[in-house]
């Protein structure tokens, strides 16, 4: 192979290495962003608070996540969110999650 062909081959290999590296780094970063526990905790506490607020007396639902209800706040990890319902809210542990009873 002549010198010009050598150089083009080197650049092609270099580019493939760069593309693979960027693809790996991007996958790692995207995975980190989307699977962050803080994001899940925030979504869970807010959705559970909305569920409690929309639930009628006697409603019961199971959340397959480790949450707790203290006073008028739902907690999961470092995240917490307040609900406004005037009904009594209680929780009991079930396999793999928590059962929330409203009213």
């Amino acid at each position, binding site marked *: 192979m002549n010198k010009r062909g050598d150089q083009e081959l080197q650049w092609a290999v270099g580019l493939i290495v760069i593309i693979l590296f960027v693809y790996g780094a991007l996958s790692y970063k*995207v995975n980190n962003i989307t699977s962050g526990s803080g*994001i899940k905790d925030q979504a869970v506490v807010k959705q559970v608070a909305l569920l409690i607020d929309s639930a009628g007396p006697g409603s019961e639902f199971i959340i397959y996540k480790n949450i707790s209800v203290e006073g008028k706040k739902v907690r999961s990890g470092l995240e917490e969110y*307040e609900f*406004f319902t005037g009904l009594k809210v209680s929780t009991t542990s079930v396999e793999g999650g928590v059962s929330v009873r409203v009213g």
Partner: protein
Amino acid sequence: MKILFSNKRAQVISMPWHALIIIFILAVIVAVILSSISSVFLSKQDVRPAESVLLARAAAECITDFGIANKNFDLNGCLTLDSRNYFVNATLYSTESNFYRNQVLGAETIKTDCLIADRGVDFGSAPICMESKNYVLIRNGDKLEKGILLVYAGIRKVEENV
């Protein structure tokens, strides 16, 4: 374009333009993917619009029973609101007589802030408000009168949602 390419024998070789274009396109794709994913996953989920609808509905349910409103309603016995984050203004009036009753619960500054935000003034601590209008019947002695129940509900909770 000349750059230094290090291999066993350091030498100066020319960078092909198509390589430069590929690297540029790659950088743009990475930037677009990361910014779009970050904007979805790293921003807080704002649930206040849904929450304000639930609050207005809860207040309306406190006052009415199967569409018939209680003339002497009292929201205090039904909703226990943290006054800093919630606001409810319920107005019940008859369209057939001069009956009118209004009750306010929570922080009235929330309504003021919502009115300011509605006028297009952008400020970071703006709460979310919504108003619901319900056609109800009001029991007046033995007869039922047509009436309207207006519920204005507001939620601040800025730090948790914005």
